[in-house]
């Protein structure tokens, strides 16, 4: 088992924002374990929206690698106590 740091048991608030013609979720804010990978957010969106093809970004800027940890993304790119994740059905920011 990889050594765990105290930050890995923390939960991160993720704010999911629709972009373009993507459907808006009824509930857009969620808490997720910091030790989870970004893939979990992507999978969650796919299931909620019933779409396989989704483009998922952080801060409307870039698409993180699905293996990146949510806690790292929050620490590096979060603000106002949350991580903003944008999703689109077609490529929004090439």
């Amino acid at each position: 088992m990889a050594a765990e740091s105290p930050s890995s048991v923390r939960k991160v608030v993720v704010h999911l924002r629709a972009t373009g013609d993507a459907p808006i979720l009824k509930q857009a804010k969620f808490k997720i374990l910091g030790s989870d990978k970004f893939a979990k957010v992507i999978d969650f969106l796919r299931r909620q929206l019933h779409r396989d093809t989704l483009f998922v970004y952080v801060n409307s800027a870039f698409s993180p690698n699905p293996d990146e940890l949510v806690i790292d993304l929050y620490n590096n790119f979060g603000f106002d106590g949350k991580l903003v994740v944008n999703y689109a059905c077609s490529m929004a920011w090439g």
Partner: protein
Amino acid sequence: MEAQKYVWDGAIPLQIHLHESQILAPRIGYLPLLASLLKPYFSSTLPPGVDTIWFDYNGLPLKWYIPTGVLFDLLCAEPERPWNLTVHFRGYPGTVLIPCEGEDSVKWSYINSLKEAAYIMNGNCKNVMNMSQSDQLELWHSVMNGNLETYQRVSSKLKLATVEDEHTSLCSSKSQQGFGETDLAGQVKTGRVPVRLYVWSVSEDFDDLEDMPKVDSWEKISYINRPVEIHKEDKCFTLHDALKILVPEFFSNDLMNVKSAGVDFEDALRIPSEDVSSDKVVEDHVQNAYEHREACSISSSAEIKLIRIQGIEPKLEIPFSWVVNNLMNPDYFLHICVCVKVPQQNST
């Protein structure tokens, strides 16, 4: 009659290795980009269908978005030359590897890493987003083809913050491009260096690299993304300093290090150690440390066994700025492989 059906339906999965051919895979490249080199050898033998190339090393499917050199440094404790990989064209392990649709997927992953690096350094990735299509393509091709000249020419247009070398900052007292200052384009340079850290934790002890256990699962490797902030006042910021920021949990034993003068027993007992389960253990360890007068790390905390960057095991006293400027990947990230020995977890 049914038995015969079973016999005819039976099949054995085969894996065919590439024997004599060796190909050179650029350190800064990515494995799926080798597909065009490899396919000619196999195309005639593949059954019809869609090819999605993937590789494994000792049974471990290789994550394609990790640069080839990093995979080698991480997984091949004792560098193996040539590196024996198995190539697959079918049966993509979707549960272990994220999907890859050839060159486009790799390019997408690269450009996004570059944007992420830009965001870390500048607080936004406008410069990458505003690249012309032809520049973006040229940049990508330079990475694919390992063309450093082209890469430097195109990437310099991005005006991504680079770390000032210790030498230049000490020599020219009038250097304006400091960290935290705004440049002409109005972008704040934060002095933050993007780092991707791959930490491999082992619990067994070993003396030689060849005795190191093989990585058989990605669960054993932590993929950490933490930037390192370099402060302008810090004239002598070393790789060691950077690592203490990146993985402070592996440097707690520095506090317990016994210098040749011996340790103050009271002080050592007061320092908390997260892995110590009882006071008795602390006492024992401190006693041992006190007896060994040379510097040593108390075995109750994690111990760094190996640090590798671009195939080098750098001395920790090297200025971090040199490491960044010379060893970073084309995505402006510094990829560092660390092997750590953690204490055996006691089962409760």
